[in-house]
């Protein structure tokens, strides 16, 4: 055990070791904050065989450093400053970038403050074995610790600290490499400061610290060819001084200084929120802010002022007289800007032209609206935090200068992101011609006030556009799904028996059997969708002698295999959830667990965590208990199979009886939930049939069939989750992992209510979930059975999404789950594929005294942090799944278009625009746009447009929201971007191609 010591801090050191500052609290009170630090002499330099540092300390830097750089023949290590990591992470992560790196604590902490994603990438670098990376805790070593001077900014202080550490290192290496008698006096390797800050380099030169810019450093490397393309635009300044930047006119307003922004937000004059781009209109965006019920509308490029989807921005709201309503027009970036030149347009003519196009697009529209539709309108005055990442893009082939089409010269091109929410990115690359037709990954580096577009750099190629591999990977990247194979450290956490693992024979001495109930004789079965490999739940029911019924839900005992603070646990926490794409599943846990050891397969013994109720025949709960168990499932059914078995009058075996019992209870449970006001929501769900694993060409798209047995399983899972939530919340009121669904603000429904009222004379009562459920039931169109589903889909979109939270972090009265009308809820039933469930299993195990709770689950902050990640991952996984379905629907349509002469489908109108219609094809679960080339008679008040009839002489045809129309669906390939897109045209009531 390490020795316990009392550190002695000399009084005279207090100047650099103590800090006192005043901090304003959220309530506006000023408090005094005291901090101190202890400076030490035992912080090692990390160089192998250093004669000065403690010999026992671990080292990773080789004694001679890297000798392959042409500027540093005597060997060197690099010491990059913070901005190098912030701007050039792709370069540093490249396999070709191999010099030994010294990362200062100052730099680590700055990166941590500036960007958590970059910080985790940086941390990952420090733990990779192949790389020689040493973290030097300069702020704690007595010679390198510094204090901020009175007139110094925090940035300047950090820069000085970095230079100080570089200076110390170079002096230290001289001591570590004393001349050896009889040998030529070799110069020691150098520690080279890498920074793109010109002023910092000047200071370093003066202090005789070796230093260099990123570009010059890369130029001198032996792999410079491969690495130069990875340089981000922020680093390219010095080689190509931006041509007459000063002379160019600013297109955007400068951002206000951070202090002004923060003060403004605090005073309520400015508002902070996330920027959301409008997917229909690239010249419009919104920022939801707490001060207004409706989000703040930003109209036009200048007012959006370089905000990118997801950025945390600060907006100024205009005077109410200048408020506007959102446009009713579809404005497409590619169409409007197709002639813009990617090379910095220096001729003013270009700018003017673009400007004219855009203002035409925005014209008049906003002012005509009824005052009720107007919403707070404003402009972005600053950015609190950029949320830029790598985006999947295509190269716009028209942006290549034709003479350059085969050359390998450096040129500037446009990269069009796949997501409609993002602006085009200007990119400088030497490989433009070879990138055309590929999906590529591009990162935004900066967005200057003089540049209409953001500038970025190329990261890597994903593959040919529309190839399944490229599309699949781009989907995963676009939704930030971690998909690398599980590493060795993670696989080492699995049981050594591997696939051969079995539940050991029953014995009190065997740890697996400790405190476990033996349920192997129970008639348990699982019911899942077809083709399910990760069976995480199974059920049983039987009559008790007292006339009541015992029902049980048995969940795979994942927490038996996944222990806290192991590599496997942190990986699962980071992944958050399994992601299901149409043709691929990205597991949260290694497949050995998911599809074997934790899959409750039939006829094998498995460890489970069981919830067992005693219920009356009316499904009133008499008692509930929780226990770890060993089960042996008797059968694995698909929904349809279980349904047939239940309905087959000839069958009367125990298994069938069990299913019938479960079914009758489930129906009663459901009736109770509905009576309590639960919502029956709908989302467009379709299923893709892949005909064979090799070609994986979709054969057909069909709507998911729902059996009674789907509902059977669902009811019992809901019940298990609710029972577990009550238990864990009782035991751990501060940190239990729960799930809630906040009631939507009534204003979210305003538009839908208005449409329903005006188009169908229907009322939507949103005063409570129960009232909403009732009024949704009444939204019927006798002629159109699908109408009700459509309204449900639209209502669902007005709601907030459910979220995980830590019970101590929010007030008790906001625990409720709106959609389920349940006062408390959590996720317990799918620990193989959701990380929240793993935590809930641990908490339940502790609540029943099976194992003590891991200390991390007592920390509110720790649980909150995990919840944040899990919520985000959960959202992303859903979106990735949906996007994957969309891609295959597109492929299916393409196939049908080739086979059939014309693909037409019925569709509902869900939105009307001045120049088009938004439609929903329920059979395909597909939403699309029908665009008209010319303006129509548009009645925004009544959600109606009038278009000339196809037959000459006939009166105009009116089309309104909720009308059923027929559309022709084609998949056309955008010539420029190689991006396949679904194009819809109207067939009936009019043929829109004539329009």
């Amino acid at each position, binding site marked *: *055990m390490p020795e316990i*010591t009392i550190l002695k*801090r000399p009084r005279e050191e207090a100047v650099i070791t103590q800090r006192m500052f005043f901090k304003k609290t959220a309530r506006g009170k000023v408090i005094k904050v005291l901090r*101190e630090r202890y400076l030490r002499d035992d912080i090692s330099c990390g160089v192998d065989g250093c004669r000065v540092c403690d010999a026992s300390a671990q080292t990773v830097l080789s004694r001679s450093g890297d000798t392959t750089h042409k500027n540093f023949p005597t060997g060197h290590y690099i010491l990059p400053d913070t901005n190098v990591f912030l701007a050039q992470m792709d370069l540093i992560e490249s396999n070709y970038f191999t010099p030994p790196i010294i990362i200062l604590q100052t730099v680590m902490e700055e990166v*941590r403050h500036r960007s958590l994603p970059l910080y985790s990438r940086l941390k990952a670098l420090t733990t990779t074995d192949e790389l020689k990376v040493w973290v030097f*805790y300069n*702020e704690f070593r007595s010679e390198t610790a510094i204090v901020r001077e009175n007139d110094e900014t925090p940035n300047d202080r950090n820069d000085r600290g970095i230079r100080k550490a570089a200076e110390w290192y170079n002096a230290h290496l001289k001591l570590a490499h004393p001349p050896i008698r009889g040998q030529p006096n070799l110069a020691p390797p150098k520690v080279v400061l890498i920074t793109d800050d010109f002023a910092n380099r000047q200071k370093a030169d003066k202090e005789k610290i070796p230093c260099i810019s990123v570009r010059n450093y890369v130029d001198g490397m032996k792999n410079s060819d491969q690495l130069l393309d990875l340089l981000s635009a922020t680093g390219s300044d010095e080689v190509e001084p931006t041509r007459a930047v000063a002379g160019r006119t600013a297109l955007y307003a400068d951002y206000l200084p951070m202090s002004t922004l923060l003060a403004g937000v605090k005073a309520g004059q400015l508002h902070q929120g996330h920027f959301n781009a409008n997917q229909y209109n690239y010249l419009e965006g919104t920022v939801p802010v707490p001060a207004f019920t409706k989000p703040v509308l930003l109209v036009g490029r200048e007012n959006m002022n370089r905000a990118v989807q997801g950025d945390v921005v600060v907006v100024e709201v205009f005077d109410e007289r200048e408020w506007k309503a959102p446009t009713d027009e579809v404005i497409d970036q590619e169409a409007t800007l197709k002639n813009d030149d990617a090379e910095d347009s220096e001729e003013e003519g270009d700018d003017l032209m673009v400007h004219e196009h855009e203002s035409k697009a925005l014209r008049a529209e906003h002012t005509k609206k009824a005052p009720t539709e107007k919403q707070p309108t404003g402009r972005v005055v600053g950015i609190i935090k950029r949320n830029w990442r790598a985006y999947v893009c295509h190269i716009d082939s028209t942006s290549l200068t034709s003479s350059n089409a085969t050359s390998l010269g450096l040129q500037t091109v446009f990269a069009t992101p796949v997501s409609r929410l993002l602006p085009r990115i200007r990119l400088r690359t030497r490989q433009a011609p070879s990138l055309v037709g590929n999906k590529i990954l591009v990162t935004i580096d900066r967005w200057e006030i003089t540049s209409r577009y953001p500038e970025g750099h190329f990261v890597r190629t994903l593959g040919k556009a529309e190839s399944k591999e490229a599309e699949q990977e781009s989907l995963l990247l676009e939704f930030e799904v971690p998909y690398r194979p599980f590493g060795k450290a993670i696989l080492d956490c699995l049981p050594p028996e591997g696939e051969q693992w079995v539940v050991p024979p029953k014995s009190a001495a065997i740890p697996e059997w400790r405190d476990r109930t033996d349920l192997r004789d129970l008639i348990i079965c699982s019911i899942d969708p077809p083709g399910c490999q990760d069976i995480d739940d199974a059920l049983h029911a039987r009559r008790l002698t007292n006339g009541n019924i015992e029902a049980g839900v048995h969940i795979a005992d994942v927490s038996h295999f996944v222990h806290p*603070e192991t590599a496997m646990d942190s990986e699962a926490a980071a992944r958050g959830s399994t992601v299901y794409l149409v043709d691929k599943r990205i597991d949260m846990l290694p497949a050995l667990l998911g599809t074997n050891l934790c899959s409750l397969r039939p006829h094998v013994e498995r460890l489970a965590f069981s919830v067992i109720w005693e219920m009356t025949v009316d499904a009133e709960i008499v008692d509930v208990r929780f226990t770890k168990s060993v089960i042996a499932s008797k059968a694995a059914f698909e929904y349809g199979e279980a349904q047939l078995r239940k309905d087959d009058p000839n069958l009367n075996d125990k298994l069938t009886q069990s299913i019938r019992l479960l079914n009758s209870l489930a129906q009663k449970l459901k009736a109770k939930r509905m009576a309590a006001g639960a919502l029956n929501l709908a989302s467009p769900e379709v299923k893709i049939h892949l005909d064979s694993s090799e070609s994986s060409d979709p054969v057909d798209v069909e709507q998911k069939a729902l059996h009674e047995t789907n509902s059977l399983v669902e009811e019992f899972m809901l019940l298990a989750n609710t029972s577990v939530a009550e238990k864990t919340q009782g035991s751990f009121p501060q940190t239990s992992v729960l799930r809630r669904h906040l009631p939507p603000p009534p204003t979210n429904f305003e538009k839908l209510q208005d449409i329903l009222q005006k188009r169908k004379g229907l009322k939507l009562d949103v005063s409570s979930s129960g009232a909403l459920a009732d009024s949704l039931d009444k939204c019927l169109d006798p002629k159109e059975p699908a109408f009700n589903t459509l309204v449900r889909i639209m209502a669902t979109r007005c709601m907030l999404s459910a979220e995980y939270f830590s019970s101590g972090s929010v007030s008790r009265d906001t625990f409720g789950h709106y959609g389920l009308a349940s006062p408390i809820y959590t996720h317990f039933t799918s620990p193989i594929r959701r990380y929240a469930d793993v935590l809930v299993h641990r908490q339940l195990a502790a609540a029943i005294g099976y194992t003590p709770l891991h*200390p991390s689950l007592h920390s509110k902050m720790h649980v909150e942090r995990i919840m944040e990640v899990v919520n985000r991952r959960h959202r992303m996984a859903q979106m990735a799944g949906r996007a994957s379905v969309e891609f295959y629907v597109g492929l299916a349509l393409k196939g049908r278009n080739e086979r059939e002469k014309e693909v037409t489908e019925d569709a509902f109108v869900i939105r009307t625009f001045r120049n088009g219609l938004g439609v929903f094809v329920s059979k395909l679960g597909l939403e699309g746009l029908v665009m008209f080339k010319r303006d129509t008679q548009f009645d925004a008040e009544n959600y109606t447009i009038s278009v000339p009839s196809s037959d000459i002489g006939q009166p105009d045809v009116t089309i309104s929201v909720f009308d059923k129309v027929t559309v022709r669906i084609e998949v056309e390939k955008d010539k420029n971007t190689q991006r396949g897109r679904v194009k819809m045209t109207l067939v009936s009531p009019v043929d829109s191609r004539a329009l």
Partner: protein
Amino acid sequence: MSSRVELINAGLLRSDGRRPYELRTISINFGAQGTADGSVTYSHGLTQVRVSVQGPHEAKPGTRRETFHDRATLNVEVQLAPFGVGERRRRGRGDKRLLELAATIKSTFEPVVQTHLYPRSTIDIFIHVLQLDGGLLPACINASTLALATAGIPLFDFVCAISGGVHGTQPLLDLTTVEENDVPSVVVGVMPRTGRATLVQMETRLHMDRFEDVFRVACDAGKVLWSEMRDALRERTGDLVDKLEAGPGMVAVKETEET
């Protein structure tokens, strides 16, 4: 921004540069404090408390404070300095948290002070918290031990207290405010002569195995602390300490008043 502070970094250094088992610097100043019989200003890291001990004196007639015919009463009062404590709220003398703190200190010392020697009298322990950065209870207890000893109050043993916590599975000793806010923590008081733990206080839940780990190192840390406190006392009171260490009931010496 506290969530942005890493409590222990990959190099196993804490946010203030200490390693897990390193205690912060300690300074002990004995100084006269008005009419006090024993007074100590004790700082541990940035936490600083001043404790004055008065008595034993006869309970003043007419006070409502209870007295016992067979022993002395301990009266503990804790006050926060109005500044320097980093508190969001000014806490008055009647504040619930301060009352709890005082009660804990009182019950810690009641079995240690040889109260039976002074029936029907009172010993006052006045605690002023001058500055706060974690470890308030241990600082109060250590300072009270020192103040009682300099006041010449006979003790069966001393009490040395220290806070400990667990970050993940790593035990930490002597927590700062930043650390106290995020990790489960305990306060352990040990009696150096007998080696027994006399106080264990926990406000958060802690895993049993983790508790054992941190409890063990905290007990050891208590002994390390004691040697520091003993040195300071020796310097101040000469052989008094040695006599005290020899066993209970040996001394009831009241040091001559110093000015």
